[in-house]
């Protein structure tokens, strides 16, 4: 029987995990321990709902409501001096609870602090674009759309950025297959000629690097050249090669240490 593979996450899996292994946690500390972060958090809490906040690896992480994102980032930029949006993207949790986690990595150059603002959206929901606040979000949101299919409302140009415009599927989803389709070689044949023509036509050649040794139309057959279009039988005589160096290639037959120079400085 074929082994069961979950369809909602087709990514590589650890082939062995100890039943009793409990993964350790990266320590989280309270926001109160850092004065700057504590003040920032108070300022945000005064206007918006903050669901969770902690410090992990020297950076504060806050969870907010999805509809607050524009307001929170505007507050952070204008009042808390977080002037740069370094990065934003999504994490796919569709297999767990049908949600995406969106994160925004903020940087304050005057305070030398970084905050990660996060929220969850349901599958199929759109996020609010922050492109009006940070131009860098223009391309980040396009990349997120390209990779996850999450659209941004009020974005000026919501199109794919890395993949071709006509691409189907969203590559960074956990459901996106890692391998190609093994039946793809027949699709064109079936569509144009019908399935019954499979035996006559054969599968489509999809390997662009394939070289047919009997093909004298498109390949030069180095060392066994024949006139174009000749039927290849396999016992063509080899063509003798000759080199440009008439007197032979210069070779050192015997190394004479006395008359040679050892270079130990490449910058001589």
């Amino acid at each position, binding site marked *: 029987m074929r082994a069961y593979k979950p369809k909602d996450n087709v*990514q*590589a899996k*650890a*082939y*062995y*995990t100890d039943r009793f*292994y409990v*993964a*350790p*946690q*990266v320590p*989280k500390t309270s926001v109160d321990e850092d004065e700057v972060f504590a003040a920032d958090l108070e300022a945000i809490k005064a206007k918006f709902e903050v669901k969770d906040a902690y410090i*992990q*690896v020297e*950076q504060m*992480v806050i969870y907010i409501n999805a509809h607050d994102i524009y307001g929170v980032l505007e507050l952070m930029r204008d009042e808390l001096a977080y*002037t*740069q*949006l*370094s*990065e934003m*993207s999504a*994490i*796919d949790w569709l297999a767990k609870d049908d949600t995406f986690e969106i*994160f925004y*990595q903020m940087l304050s*150059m005057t305070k*030398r602090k*970084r905050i*990660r603002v996060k929220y969850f959206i349901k599958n199929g929901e759109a996020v609010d674009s922050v492109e009006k606040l*940070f*131009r*860098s979000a*223009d*391309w980040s949101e396009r990349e997120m759309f390209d*990779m996850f299919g999450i659209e941004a409302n009020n974005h000026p140009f919501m199109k*794919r*950025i*890395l*993949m*071709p415009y006509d691409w189907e599927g969203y*590559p*960074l989803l956990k459901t*996106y297959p*890692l391998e190609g389709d093994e039946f793809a070689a027949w699709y064109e044949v079936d569509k144009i000629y019908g399935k019954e023509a499979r035996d006559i036509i054969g599968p489509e050649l999809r390997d662009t690097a394939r070289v047919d040794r009997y093909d004298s139309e498109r390949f030069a057959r180095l060392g066994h050249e024949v006139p174009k279009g000749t039927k290849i039988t396999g016992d063509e005589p080899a063509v003798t090669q000759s080199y440009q160096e008439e007197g032979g290639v210069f070779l050192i037959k015997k190394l004479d240490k006395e008359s040679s120079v050892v270079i*130990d*400085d*490449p*910058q001589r």
Partner: protein
Amino acid sequence: MAQVKNRLTPFFENITFDRDDNELILNFGPQHPSAHGQLRLMLHLQQEQIVKAHPDIGYLHRGMEKMAENMIYNEFMPTTDRMDYIASSSNNYGFALAVEKLIGLEVPRRAKVIRMLLLEINRLMSHLFWLATTALDIGAMTVFLFAFREREYLMDIIEGYCGARLTHAAIRIGGVPLDLQDGFLHQLRVFLNKLPQNIKDYEDLLDSNRIWLMRMEEVGVISTEMALSWGCTGPMLRASGVAWDIRKEEPYELYDEVEFDVPFSDKGDNFARYRIYMEEMRQSAKILYQCIEMYEKCEKDGQTDLMAHAPKYISAPKIDIMTQNYSLMQHFVLVTQGMRPPVGEVYVPTESPKGELGFYINSQGGPYPYRLKLRAPSFWHTGILTDLLPGHYIPDVVSIIGTTNIVFGEVDR
């Protein structure tokens, strides 16, 4: 304005022009020699002036973030080489540091010094390459040849260390794989002693060159607000009036122990960026001299460790693996299954030659990262062309692309 036939506008018998605004759309790239890789620009032109620019990227997209989700951590290291392939050790380092922060590892001092040596050599290589290609785009062939000659020496030194010239994979999670080879420091010193004169040569050729100044001064001006809004980092940001260098402001490794300056300018034009690259080369040389001293002190103090000691995550030294049973077992598990960092997430920025190179890793305790986001500086330095190019003329496009110093391995990932 309706088109009026005269002797200067061509007359086509069978073609009628629906648009009468003279706007021409020019496709620049993706195979243009000064597109620095695979950049396609769609430029809307009024005569020679650009009214709208639309950069199109993705021609070198290899899905590195997807690859990372399906590789054990050590396996991903050589892939990072292919991001900014002009200075590949800086990518290796960014990834290694992110995983080390996630695990909470402390790297031995000698490894730190070697890493800094490699990082600064990479910075020099990258800046020399930038100077060479930009000068060539502008038409200064001599500078190209000079700068490539110097870069060649550095590549030889790196080749001696790790065997590769371009894709180094010279840094491991937890330290470095090898000690410096014999002659490394000597060769580096010889190079560094020559470098000030070399830089002076480039400057003599360029600083007062009329063509260079015309193509550089007051061209491609990025205001501070625009640079911040577009997420510019590195020399792009420092040329626009923000003295922000992660090595200085959020020091990693031993950058808080070395002395160096952060050059910046408030001009924001191409020439300011050029000056900053030149000055940064001098600062890198200064750091390298100090690193050489630090390395010699490590040698004197007998600090020989190159990899962190953390049996759960890092393989033991080779001698232990070959002599001790338990180390061999650990090594076998780490190679076949991979290390399993704790559950959590981390975003670690480093100052790569191009700007802020960040690695966001979300680990769920498995041997593969659940999500890995690569924050490559060039991505936004390409995006800014949308707002930067309009108003400029066609020849400026080449010099602006040159000074943004974008590398497409990094933009497309």
